[in-house]
């Protein structure tokens, strides 16, 4: 039933393939989490400045993406992304065929999903900063730039870390959906291996264990970070 001998490293087993696949999962997760945080900051900014149009666009984006299954978003970006990129390129006078590689599409798709969750976390922690602090910084003559980096961001990071940890776990698990686009990460690798060896149980359990390890280890890392960032505050 469970064939341990198929999981050795080298040509006889699939161990090294799974190692590379795990690294690919980690790479996609980290890249899309980073891009997602960047998009989330823009979304939060669009929501908190007093502008109806940007707020409407940001609210529309988060509502729609969170109300639609992740799989649909990935399909849409995977099958429709090339056409969009090509039509944008046409505007700039580039008429040749463009094909985005699987990693780029995967990163963008997961980032678009993860950004909606991150933006809610970041917005909540931004709103938890009392106005008096920003006013005090203004009274000290700090400009907008240093208010953002010296007053707002350290506190936002501290408040947001537990939430960001949750979003990271969701993002990590969402990367399994990317297997439908053909990018060889853990899920795809386990499907390939089980098709070759006719032993789905072995490789799917391997995939489950690998995901479990990733989520557990990253959970520990976030716990340490939380302790680090809340020094001097009672938790």
């Amino acid at each position, binding site marked *: 039933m469970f064939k341990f001998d198929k999981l050795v490293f080298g040509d006889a087993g699939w161990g090294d393939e799974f190692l590379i696949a795990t690294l690919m999962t980690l790479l996609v997760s980290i890249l899309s989490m980073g891009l997602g945080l960047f998009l989330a900051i823009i979304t939060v900014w669009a929501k908190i400045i007093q502008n109806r149009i940007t707020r409407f666009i940001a609210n529309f984006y988060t509502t729609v993406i969170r109300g639609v299954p992740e799989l649909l978003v990935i399909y849409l970006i995977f099958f429709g992304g090339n056409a969009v990129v090509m039509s944008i390129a046409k505007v700039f006078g580039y008429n040749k065929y463009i094909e985005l590689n699987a990693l780029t599409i995967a990163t963008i798709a997961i980032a678009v999903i993860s950004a909606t969750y991150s933006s809610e976390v970041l917005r909540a922690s931004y709103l938890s900063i009392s106005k008096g602090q920003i006013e005090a910084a203004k009274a000290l003559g700090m400009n907008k730039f240093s208010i953002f980096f010296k007053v707002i961001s350290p506190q936002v990071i501290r408040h947001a870390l537990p939430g960001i940890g949750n979003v990271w776990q969701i993002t990590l698990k969402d990367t*399994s959906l990317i297997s439908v686009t053909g990018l060889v990460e853990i*899920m795809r690798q386990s499907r390939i291996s089980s098709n070759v060896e006719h032993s789905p*149980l072995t490789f799917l359990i391997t995939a489950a264990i690998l995901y479990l390890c990733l989520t557990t280890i990253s959970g520990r890392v976030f716990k340490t970070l939380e302790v680090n960032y809340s020094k001097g505050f009672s938790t």
Partner: protein
Amino acid sequence: MIEFLTSIQNSLIYKNFFLVLSGLDNTILLLLISLPLGFVLALLFALGRVSKIAFLSRTIASYIFVIRGTPLLVQIYLIYFGLGSVKFIRESFLWYALKEPFWCGVIALTINTVAYGAEIFRGGIQSIEKSQVESGLSLGFGKFLLLRKIILPIAIRKVLPSYGNELILMVKATSLVSLTTYMEMTGIARKIMAKTFAPVEAFIAAGILYLFLNFLMVQFVKYLEWKYNPHLRLNN
């Protein structure tokens, strides 16, 4: 005006909309079985998790840990492809359920939502003030009456918003069952895409239907919150 209407009727997105709509009943069928079942089991698991029997509590804790630490897709594949490849399961009565993608989907979704739901209900049960339990005890309530009249109503009421989130996640999770050849909305949208090479139109039609389904779910949860929190209503 009539030309405009006929052009809408001939547009791909309009045709796709009704094609995808025919998969709505399959999506709802998945939810109709797995959500109530998941709710009941999640409550039982949460009670087991907070019970003083160490073995029961620890077993449920590790079940929750494993399910919450792995993607739903892995669980669906494990049940659909993994269990089907084991010989003695194929020969047992379980095979009647496991050979159907529909029942595999129901089992996987239920297993998944039970883990998340149990964790939510545990939070609700543990947040109940001790004084409320003690006043129940002083009235001479037995364990079962205490559970039925005090603990569960208060706990469920408290966790309704977060359980509502879980319900919406479940609506979205049904789309993954399409990967086991079960033809619900996402599966049909994919088929349309393969036939017409018009991905955007097909998936937008499906997306609108999912948004509508989630909108209904949000209204349902809001109604439940209104119904079970009479003390929070502004004017009654």
